[in-house]
Each structure stands twice: as structure tokens, then as C-alpha cells.
């Protein structure tokens, strides 16, 4: 185990990581945010969705350093006396769940289609790639909105709230697979020509077997970079949809929902309900993007 760790520590990637201040700071922020999301129930000072714990006379309290604030509610409370700090923890959790799940979905779709297109070629490949081109010529947010709208039209209204999280994952996942497919297709076409694939063919391995156990492991490198960068995009898309009111419902808020709710009280001067979730969202997206940029440069042999 220690040997594995030592080898990882000495690798090029780890060396470049130790040398990059941006990567260190970005991953530090991410570790803190991930931990906050995972341990949200332990870190929160109240359960904001348990009405019994809300004390209405404590509503609209400002953050503790502003006059009238209390240290019991570090970042203040909203109009329903929910602790802003606690709602952010739970909101971050939902934002990250949707983010990771939709990146995984997009990855599975994109990698499969890319492998099939690159390996099989011909009409199948052309069809997949033309479809990808058309999809790419539309802004991601528009496609995600459309998938969302279709899902809402199909589902009965009573299920909208419960299904919201799955609809979001589906909408964002279906929007973002194109980049994976293009990259994987490109590398697959290169790998297909190599000798180990021909050897596997002669040995009678099926086409599916070759794709999954021989080509797939060799085309996954760039996928890591895309996954990192698209995590930032996915979190942002989710936040935007929730902000527009077609994402997570108020009973199960993500960061975007919190910002939408806070936005409604902007004119009462209650700025903390909207500002703090926004700050966390920006920090999260910025850190993911910086880490993605670093990873891209670190894995790019031309820049070594």
C-alpha cells in the first residue's frame, strides 16, 4: 500500500500538482466543500426542513457580525427562520449530487457512442456525429431546458417535485455527452489500427469484448479532463435551471433554488439569503474550472 502511495507521489502528475499553487488552492477549496456536503447533517446547526426546529421569531436575522445578528445563526436566517448556513450545506449536497450524477450519465452515453462510432465507422458513425454536430450548435442551456420541459409534459404534475432531481440529471446528462463522444471516437479510431487490437481480433475476441476490455482503458485519459471541466458546467447548468424555477423545488433546494428564493427578498434588504449561496456556488465552479485547466495542461505532453 505504501509502495503504491510512494509511486503515486513520485509520478509526473503529482509533481506538477505539488508545483502548482492554483491546483493546490483549488483542490483545498474543493475538499472543504465536498466534506461540507458529505457531512451536512453533522455540520448543520439545525435541520432546515424540519418545521419543528424553526423558530419564527428568529426569522430575517442578519449574519452574526452585523448588528442584530446572533452567533447561533452564523450567516443569518431567511424569512421562514431557516438558518442560511445550514440550508447552504444541504443545498451544496444536492448541487453536487446532481453534478456528479449528470457527469456520470453524460460520460456513459458519450463514451459508448464514441466507442461505437469510432470502432464501427461507416453510416453508424456518420449518424452519431451529425447528430452531435446539430446538438452542439445549440446552447447547452437551451437543450437542457427543452429536455426538462418535455419530461414535465410527460410526467403528471403530482410527480414533478419528486422526479425533479432525476429529470435534472437526465436533462444535463443528455446535453453534455457530445464532448466525450468526439474525444473517445477520435482516440478509438487511432487505437483500432494498432497491433494489439488486431491480435485480439485474431484470437477471436468479439467486437464488444475488444471495445470494452481492450480499447476503452486506452482512451480514458482525456475523458478525465473533460469530466472535471464538465462537472463545473453541470453544477452551473443545474443552478441556472433551478434559478429559473424549473429545477429543484423549494422543499429540496439546491444552491440555485436558494439563490432564486433569496432573490425574491432582495428588495426587503435581506441580502444575506441570496449572497452566501451565490458565493459558495461561484467558489465551487471556479475551483472546479481551475483544477480542470490545470489537469488539462498537466496531462498535455506538449506543455511539459
Amino acid at each position, binding site marked *: 500500500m505504501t509502495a503504491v502511495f510512494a509511486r503515486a507521489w513520485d509520478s509526473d502528475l503529482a509533481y506538477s500538482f505539488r508545483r502548482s499553487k492554483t491546483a493546490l488552492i483549488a483542490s483545498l477549496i474543493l475538499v472543504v466543500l465536498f466534506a461540507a456536503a458529505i457531512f451536512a447533517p453533522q455540520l448543520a446547526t439545525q435541520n432546515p426542513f424540519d418545521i419543528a426546529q424553526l423558530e419564527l421569531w428568529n426569522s430575517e436575522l442578519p449574519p452574526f457580525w452585523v448588528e442584530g445578528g446572533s452567533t447561533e445563526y452564523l450567516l443569518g436566517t431567511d424569512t421562514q427562520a431557516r438558518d442560511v448556513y445550514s440550508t447552504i450545506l444541504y443545498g451544496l449536497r444536492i448541487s453536487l449530487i446532481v453534478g456528479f450524477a449528470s457527469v456520470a450519465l453524460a460520460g456513459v452515453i458519450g463514451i459508448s457512442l464514441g466507442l461505437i462510432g469510432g470502432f464501427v465507422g461507416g453510416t453508424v458513425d456518420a449518424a452519431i456525429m451529425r447528430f452531435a454536430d*446539430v446538438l452542439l450548435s445549440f446552447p447547452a*442551456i437551451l437543450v437542457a431546458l*427543452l429536455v426538462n420541459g418535455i419530461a414535465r409534459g410527460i410526467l403528471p404534475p403530482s410527480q414533478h417535485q419528486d422526479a425533479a432531481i432525476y429529470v435534472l440529471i437526465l436533462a444535463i446528462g443528455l446535453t453534455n455527452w457530445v464532448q466525450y463522444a468526439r474525444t473517445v471516437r477520435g482516440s478509438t479510431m487511432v487505437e483500432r489500427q494498432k497491433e494489439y487490437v488486431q491480435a485480439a481480433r485474431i484470437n477471436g475476441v468479439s467486437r464488444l469484448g475488444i471495445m470494452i476490455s481492450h480499447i476503452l482503458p486506452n482512451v480514458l485519459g482525456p475523458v478525465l479532463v473533460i469530466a472535471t471541466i464538465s462537472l463545473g458546467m453541470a453544477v452551473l447548468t443545474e443552478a441556472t435551471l433551478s*434559478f*429559473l424555477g424549473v429545477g429543484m423545488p423549494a422543499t429540496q433546494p439546491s444552491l440555485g433554488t436558494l*439563490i432564486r428564493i433569496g432573490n425574491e427578498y432582495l*428588495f426587503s434588504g435581506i441580502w444575506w439569503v441570496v449572497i452566501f449561496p451565490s458565493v459558495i456556488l*461561484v467558489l465551487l465552479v471556479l475551483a472546479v474550472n481551475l483544477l480542470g485547466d490545470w489537469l488539462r495542461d498537466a496531462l498535455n505532453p506538449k506543455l511539459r
Partner: protein
Amino acid sequence: MLGFLIRRIVQSIFVMLAVALIAFLMFRFMGDPVNSMVPEHASAAERAEVRERLGLDQPLFVQYGRFIARAATGDFGLSWRNARPVSTLLAERFPATAELVLVAAFLSLAVGVPLGIYTALRPHAIGAQSLQLLSLIGISLPTFVTGILLILVFSVWLGWLPSFGRGQVVDIGWWTTGFLTGSGLKALILPSIMLCLFQLTLIMRLVRAEMMEVLRTDYIKFARARGLRDRSIHFRHALKNTLIPVITIFGLQLGGLIAFAIITETVFQWPGMGALFIQAVNFGDVPVMAAYLVLVSFIFVVINTTVDLLYATIDPRLRVDAAPGH
């Protein structure tokens, strides 16, 4: 050039047919229109009669053909939400979105290009360095957060600018414009800043990168050797070649502006098509969604084709079939 033009137009037609197919399938498979038209206890024969009268018993491709024929004349039926013709709803909302997008597009070019040139010519000046940093923040900020911050500072705290609506508008035929009144212009400021910010930073960074690239090329060195003045080298020789990729990105981003106008219109309660679309998504109002999709796709396709043609006109290397010997 003619071959190129025809190829692009044929491609565009295929894209539009595909988009129309999606819109058609939405109509066809989201809810059965017969159910909402017959009484609850209608017999199977009555249902079949309605189905036949609506033409829903015909093969799918016939129905698809009819859908396209009607869509081409702008007929998308009635909104499920308020039973008004979708084309009227969109026509009412179109001017608001068009004015917002045009102002934002103009701002992003009028501010983005000069800033990009400045940061490219003086890369080490403090002003250029801080602009670079600002642009990094501009790209990372979610647009709706930018909008909220603008409202918080300029409407809530300072009280200088309105935070919702279009202000006073003037009717010119079916078009309503906010350009002619003071309150209309004032109402445009914050939304257009919010909408253009992302594109502005993008154009600034692109112009900077391209300009620095061009300034390193041989023909610029040669121009310097000829003793031309800096001003003439920068603006007559370098800028021309810098602007070619800017046109492409600008064209592609114009579509992005229309999409992101959805968010801006929600933040500023701007009565445009995007706000209408969000309501439609929320209610599952298929006719409005489908019509918006087809209209926006049409605008995208027109923009993309125009950009490609413009590009080919400006950069002769791209005119493949114009090359001699082919």
C-alpha cells in the same frame, strides 16, 4: 462560391427538418389531444370520429408533412395555457428580446474589441493586467449571479436604475420599442450589461490572443521595417486579420445571447420570448415550446449560414472550389 452556398443551404434545411421533427414529436406524444377535446365518457366511435376529423388517423409522415406546411406559415396552433394563438404570443414578445439581444451584442463588440486591442498592445500595463484578471472573474461568474449583483448595487442600494420591466415603450406598427423613451432606455441598461458581460470578456480575450499572434507574424515585421507608423500597422494591417475569427465567434455567440436572454429576462422580468418559454416549460405548454424551438433554431441556422458565407467572402482560403486547378 455557388457550390459552397448551395451545400450550406441544403445542410441548413436538413437541420431545420430535424428540429421540426422534434417539435412535431413533442406535439404527437406529449398528451393525446383527443382526450382533451372529447367529453369524458365519449364512446370509442366518437373518439375515432374526432381523431379522423383532426387527421390523427393518417400515417405519421403525412401528419409531419402537414405540420411543416403549417409551421412554415407561422401557424403553431393555440397555447395550452391561455388559448391564444402561439404566433401572436411570440410576435408580441419578439421585439423585447430582439432589442435586448441587439444592444447586448453591440455593447460586447463596441467595448470588447477596443479592450482586446488595448490589452494586446500594452500587455504589461497595470490597466491591461487588471482587465485580464477581471475577465477571468467575468467568465466564472454565473450570469444570474451577475444580474442579482447588478440589481443589488444599482437598484436596491443606489436606487439609480430600474430592476424590472421595459419601462415606457412606443408602438411602431406591431413592433414595440424602448429606444425612444427615457425610461425605456434606462430599463435597458442593467439587463443588457448582464447579458453582454460574458460575451464581452470572451471577445476581449479572443481579440487579445489573435492580435498578439498577428503582431508576431512576418508581414508585420516587414511593415515595421518599411518604417510605417505604429498606428497604421496596428489598425490597418494587424486589426484586419485579427477580426476574422472574431466574426465567427461573434456569430456563434449571437445564438448564445438569444439562449441566455432566457435567464436575463427571468432576472429582470423582461417581457420577452425567453420569459414566455420558461413559463411554457413550467406548465408543459407544448405549442409554445415547439414554436419557440423552431423559431430560435431558424434564427441560429440563418446566423450560422451567414457567418460561414461571410467568412468565405473575407478569407479566400476557405473557398475550396474557387481554387484554380480544381
